[in-house]
């Protein structure tokens, strides 16, 4: 090979390495969820010459393509919204195998969508819209086992997140936080599918924390952990974010802290036992899930190296915790419009709650869609910055007492988008923040919302896509746009980087969809973001100098 991959040496900013290399082995890149690639063949000086190498059209364009591809040893693994799965040759885009999970005719609760597969133990794992976990043979796509976690009609829940492979287990978190449901994380033996443990987000009778739920409210209290967790192999801890308390806007029947909703939990992989928790929003009445990605980075805080967990949530704050014990270190705002509280004090306590009221509108920022959606931020060890996709939005909330009905929507009120103080209905941007202090470094502005994940690379580049179909690269240090390509479909998934035979690729899904993705069309009439379901792979032209 006449070109050499320049593997960037990770800056001495961090001790542990969460970077990916030739492979993209897990939903967040590695288990540390940095979404950062150490590959730097593509860099600021040559990204302007990036060209499309291949496109793969899945054929399942309902609700767009929202997945993160996994790439291992030159094979790319992808799932679609209706639970099709593909293995694709990562250099050429040619299909190796495909699989379709037989979903029932009934439309799934909240629509069909899927954020990706996990790969390990010779298997490809996928959660389904009807609450199954299925394992496929990695080489052939043949189904090996499937488990029904609980009848989806009963729980009003399903799996949309990518599973997480941790040692000999595969772990999944489910949805259902807007249903009358008690959320859970479940672990299975990766090889056989046999049940290993279930962590209920809401403690049962006799368990510590159960006293934070009056009466029977614990049975329907939500806390759905509906995204993908992270894992620290040295500490041997799984970290997972949990969802909002139910009913979302009305807490009349659940006066109490409502543990462990809107929290980060640290679990022991062998047993699912809770080691520690940190609750971001006690008695959540704003639909403020804490379900998003947990970025694990070792960084200096006040002069001392700490093992951190960085967590941006719907609240508009990024929480900085010590991941060995859950100690609160800091919370820095990443959004401008935050009115649900006056602030967070030095101990993490919320100050000045502005809660929805029964029967009357209360203007609250951010609205229930959150200052950030589930599309992931990226952390670069070279800059020490977290590249965060931000939504500025407010809502008029009206709470309504509601009786829980198993498996049915349990929202407890109504939320309508409301204008920001400057009169706009909302807008978005990608901003770079210092990971520990939250000091903003630069902003890339956008008139609507940016709802794709961010990818950072050692070439000092940051990649993402917008709902109008543009996939683009920014200078990681300045935010200047260096390259773009019109993919035609809106971006609601996660781009990745990988290498095959010494050639670095950047691959992105395209095709608009999702629940929050439907919001802009109501807010900006006449704006249409295009669906589709296509994966694009880009690289430097073959003959160009590296």
């Amino acid at each position: 090979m006449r070109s050499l991959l320049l593997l960037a040496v990770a800056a001495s900013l961090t001790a542990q390495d969460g970077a990916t290399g030739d492979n993209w082995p897990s939903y967040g890149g590695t288990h540390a969820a940095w979404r950062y690639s150490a590959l730097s063949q593509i860099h600021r000086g040559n990204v302007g010459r990036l060209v499309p190498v291949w496109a793969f059209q899945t054929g399942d364009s309902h609700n767009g393509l929202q997945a993160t591809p996994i790439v291992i040893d030159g094979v790319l693994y992808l799932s679609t919204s209706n639970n099709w799965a593909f293995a694709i040759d990562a250099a050429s885009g040619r299909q190796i195998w495909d699989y379709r999970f037989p979903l029932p005719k009934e439309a799934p609760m909240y629509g069909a969508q899927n954020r990706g597969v996990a790969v390990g133990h010779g298997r490809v794992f996928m959660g389904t819209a009807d609450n199954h976990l299925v394992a496929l043979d990695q080489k052939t796509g043949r189904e090996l086992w499937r488990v029904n976690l609980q009848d989806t009609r009963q729980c009003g829940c399903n799996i949309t997140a990518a599973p997480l492979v941790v040692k000999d287990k595969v772990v999944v978190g489910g949805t259902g936080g807007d249903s009358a449901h008690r959320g859970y994380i479940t672990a299975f033996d990766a090889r056989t599918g046999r049940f290993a443990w279930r962590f209920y987000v809401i403690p049962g009778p006799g368990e510590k924390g159960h006293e934070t739920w009056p009466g029977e409210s614990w049975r329907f209290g939500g806390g759905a952990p509906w995204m993908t967790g992270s894992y620290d192999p040295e500490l041997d801890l799984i970290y997972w974010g949990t969802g909002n308390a139910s009913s979302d806007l009305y807490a009349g029947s659940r006066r109490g802290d409502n543990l462990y909703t809107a929290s980060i939990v640290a679990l022991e992989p062998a047993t699912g036992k809770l080691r520690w928790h940190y609750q971001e929003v006690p008695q959540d009445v704003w639909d403020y899930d804490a379900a998003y990605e947990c970025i694990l980075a070792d960084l200096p805080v006040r002069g001392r190296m700490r093992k951190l967990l960085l967590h941006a949530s719907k609240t508009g704050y990024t929480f900085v915790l010590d991941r060995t014990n859950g100690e609160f270190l800091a919370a820095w705002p990443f959004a401008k419009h935050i009115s649900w509280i006056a602030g967070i004090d030095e101990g993490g306590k919320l100050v000045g709650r502005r809660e929805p009221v029964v029967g009357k509108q209360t203007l609250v920022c951010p609205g229930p869609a959150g200052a950030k959606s589930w599309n992931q931020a990226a952390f670069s060890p070279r800059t020490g910055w977290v590249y965060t996709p931000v939504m500025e939005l407010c809502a008029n909330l009206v709470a309504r007492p509601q009786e829980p009905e198993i498996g049915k929507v349990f929202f407890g009120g109504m939320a309508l988008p409301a204008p920001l103080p400057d009169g706009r209905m909302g807008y978005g941007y990608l901003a770079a923040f210092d990971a520990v202090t939250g000091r903003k470094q630069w902003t890339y502005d956008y008139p609507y919302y940016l709802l794709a994940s961010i990818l950072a690379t050692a070439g000092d580049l940051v990649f993402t896509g917008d709902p109008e179909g543009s996939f683009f690269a920014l200078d990681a240090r300045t935010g200047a746009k260096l390259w773009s390509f019109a993919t035609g479909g809106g971006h609601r998934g996660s781009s990745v980087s990988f290498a095959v035979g010494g050639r670095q690729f950047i691959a992105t899904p395209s095709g608009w969809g999702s629940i929050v993705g439907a919001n802009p069309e109501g807010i900006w009439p006449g704006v249409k973001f295009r669906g589709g379901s296509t994966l694009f792979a880009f690289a430097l032209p073959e003959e160009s100098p590296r």
Partner: protein
Amino acid sequence: MMALALLLAQAAGEDIFARGAAVFRKTCATAYCHGPEGSAGRAPQLAGRRFPRRQLTAVIREGIPNTSMPGFKDQLSSDDLNAVTAYVASLATAAAPATAAGTAPAKPPAPPAAARGRDLFFDPARLPNCGVCHHLDGWGIAVAADLGAVRPSNIAALRQVRPARVKTAQPRDEPPFPAVAVDSARGETRLWDLTAVLPVLRSFRPEEVTLADGSPWSHAAATRLYSDPELEAILAYLRWLPRPR
């Protein structure tokens, strides 16, 4: 009233459906509610469903008590109310799957003992619960006997039942496990693996596994999380359920 509004709107040259679509988009289609064109968000799907006009008008004006659906009679002008009602009615012809999301009918009310038995049967707070292997009354996973046909006479019988269909699977590369055969089609042998609390539907190549009659698996172990009074309530539920035709 609707027909008059329609006539007046048409006389005025206005497209009532376009106005209704605009109102719907602004007020109803938020993803926390009915979704774009009624395709479903966190509220029931409207697309492809036909509602009696009187009911539709009443629900839009007054809301539905004890749910998240508010009434809009004080929030929208009467022109907007008429327009959005006409628009939602027009969604009846939109494409829709066989059963719309969020619209399953509520379960019929049961007498107290049977209702308690139903709650216990499907209790998600205990694993295993009966619903993990039995599909019944619209819920549950269909692994074991169809309880529509089989009714144990007392709780001792319930605990002690030893189904002949539970056999022992002997895979080539792992220890034997209790299994229920599913099928052997398309060059694959599919079995339910009953080792752990959730049954696993596993697929083997036919040469990778054999099935032998008999198994140490027992229904007593599967029902271990239920006390005798709880099983009595479950029996009451099974007796209350209508027999299938």
